[in-house]
C-alpha cells in the first residue's frame, strides 16, 4: 500500500513517520485547540502513523527558554518512545547560564532549536555564536526558523551561518516559508552540503516539494509539521500527494532525520 492509498483509505502511513519540527502547548497570538496538549498531539500522531516527533515547547520559542525547555524535557520524559526534544537557545542570555551543555547530552534531546524571529535577534549575531560553535563541535543538529525577508533569519542569513560553521548539521525550518523563500533556501542548500530543508508551512504543496527534491536531492529534505502550531495532517498529505515513490517518501518522512540524529549519537558527524 502506498502512502497516498493509505491516506485515501484513512489508514495510518505505511512508513512510520518521524517529525523533525513540532511544538507543544498554547500560543499567545491565537488559540490552539485543546491547548496543544501532548495528549492531543499523540491522538493525531496515532491516526496518521507518526511514530515520533522532535519538539520544542511554544513557551521556549516565545521568550522563556528556561521554563520552556523544562516543559520540553517533561514531555520527552512523559512519552519517551514518542517524543524527542530540542532545547531552545535564547540569544539574550549567556549560553552557559541558560542552556548548560550537560542538559543537551541527556537521552532524547536531539538538537537545538533557534527562533530568531520571535526572539527578534539575528541568527548571525553574537548571542547565538557560542551555541552554534558548540553544536558544530559535538555534531548536534540545529533547527532554525527560516523566513524569507526576515531581518533575523532569512535563508541568506542561514547561508552565512553555514559558511561560518561548515560542519554544522543545519536544518532550515519552513525552508523560507514563501515561494520566494523556497528559491532562496534551495540556493543555500546547493551551496552548503550540511544544510537540510524542512518542509512545514502554509505555502508548501506537493508541487513545491517535488520542485525542491528535483533541485537539492531527496536526501536533503526533512519532514516536519509544526504541530500543534499547524495541523499535522496537511504536511503529511502533501508528501503523499507528491507521489515521489516509496524510497523517497521513506527518506523524507523518516530516514533523513534519523540519520542526522544517529550520526550525532554515533559520534560520526
Amino acid at each position: 500500500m502506498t502512502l497516498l492509498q493509505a491516506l485515501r483509505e484513512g489508514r495510518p502511513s505505511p512508513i512510520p513517520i518521524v517529525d523533525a519540527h513540532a511544538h507543544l502547548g498554547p500560543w499567545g497570538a491565537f488559540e490552539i485547540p485543546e491547548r496543544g496538549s501532548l495528549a492531543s498531539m499523540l491522538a493525531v500522531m496515532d491516526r496518521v502513523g507518526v511514530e515520533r516527533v522532535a519538539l520544542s515547547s511554544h513557551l521556549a520559542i516565545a521568550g522563556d527558554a528556561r521554563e520552556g525547555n523544562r516543559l520540553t524535557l517533561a514531555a520527552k520524559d512523559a512519552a519517551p518512545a514518542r517524543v524527542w526534544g530540542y532545547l531552545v537557545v535564547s540569544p539574550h542570555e549567556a549560553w552557559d547560564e541558560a542552556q548548560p551543555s550537560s542538559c543537551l547530552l541527556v537521552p532524547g534531546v536531539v538538537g537545538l532549536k533557534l527562533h530568531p524571529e520571535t526572539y527578534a535577534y539575528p541568527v548571525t549575531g553574537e548571542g547565538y555564536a557560542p551555541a552554534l560553535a558548540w553544536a558544530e563541535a559535538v555534531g548536534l543538529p540545529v533547527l532554525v526558523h527560516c523566513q524569507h525577508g526576515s531581518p533575523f533569519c532569512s535563508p541568506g542569513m542561514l547561508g552565512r551561518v553555514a559558511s561560518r560553521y561548515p560542519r554544522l548539521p543545519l536544518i532550515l525550518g519552513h525552508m523560507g516559508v514563501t515561494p520566494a523563500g523556497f528559491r532562496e533556501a534551495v540556493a543555500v542548500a546547493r551551496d552548503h552540503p550540511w544544510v537540510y530543508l524542512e518542509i512545514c508551512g502554509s505555502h508548501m504543496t506537493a508541487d513545491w516539494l517535488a520542485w525542491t527534491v528535483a533541485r537539492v536531492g531527496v536526501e536533503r529534505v526533512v519532514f516536519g509539521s509544526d504541530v500543534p502550531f499547524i495541523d499535522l495532517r496537511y504536511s503529511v498529505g502533501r508528501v503523499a500527494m507528491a507521489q515521489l515513490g516509496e524510497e523517497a517518501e521513506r527518506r523524507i518522512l523518516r530516514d533523513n532525520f534519523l540519520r542526522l540524529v544517529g550520526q550525532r549519537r554515533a559520534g560520526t558527524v
Partner: protein
Amino acid sequence: MTVVDVNVMVGPVPHQPVWIAGVADLLRRMDSAGVSQALVYGSMARYGDPEEGSARLVGHLAREETGGRLVPTWVHAPRRGASPPEELWARGVRAVRLFPRTHGFPLAQPRVVAWLSRWAKGGLPVMVDLDEVGYEDVRGLLARVPEAILVLCHVGYRRLAEVEALLEEFPRVLVDTAYLASHRGLERLVGAFGVERVVFGSGMPFGDLGGALAAVRWSDLSPQDQAAILGRGREWTGAPPAGRGEGGEG
C-alpha cells in the same frame, strides 16, 4: 466515497510556476486522489479581468468536454459586470467567488448586498478566501443578507476565533478544508457547529489536495461524517433546481 472539491483555480499565477498544466493534468490529479468533480475558477478572473476571465473559463471548460467533472465558478467584482443567477445557471456556473482585497472593493457595500441576495435566492453559494476579508466586513454583509450561502475558504490557523464567531452568528456560513489548519481544527468545528458546516475544498494550486484530504480522512470523525464533508459539494455541482435556470453542465 464521493469526493467533490469546491475550491480549485486553474491558469498561470504571477508568483509561482504553473503547477496545473491544463484540464487533463487537473483531471489526473483528481483521479489520483479519488475526486470525482471540482468547482473551478480561472486565474485570469482573479489576477486580470474578473468578467472576461470568468467568461473564458466557462467557454474553455465547455470545449474541453469534461463530462461535467469540472464545473465553473464565476468571479464577480462590482465594477461594471452583472452576474444574474439565471444567466449564471444557464452558462453552467454553479458558484460565485469574490476577491474584495485583490479587486479593491468593500465587501459590505450596497451593490454586493444586492447581488448576494439574488445569488442566495438563485441557490448559488458564494466563496471568499478569509485573507480577502475582515471579520467586520463579513458581519456587515451577512447582517443584511443572512440568507446568503457564504463559504469561507482557506481559513488557515490564526483566525479560528473569528471563524467560530461567524459560524455561530450566521447559520448559513460554511468553511472549506483548503487549509483549515488549526490543530484538530476540523474536529473542533464539527463538534461545535455540526458536520453540515464544512465542505471539502483543496485550494489548489495554493492549497494542497493531499493535505486537505488528509485533514478529513485522518480525522477522528466517523466515516459518515467524513463522507458528508467530502461529498457536500455535490449539492452545488448537480443540475439546477427547478425554476432556477436552464442549461446543463458547462
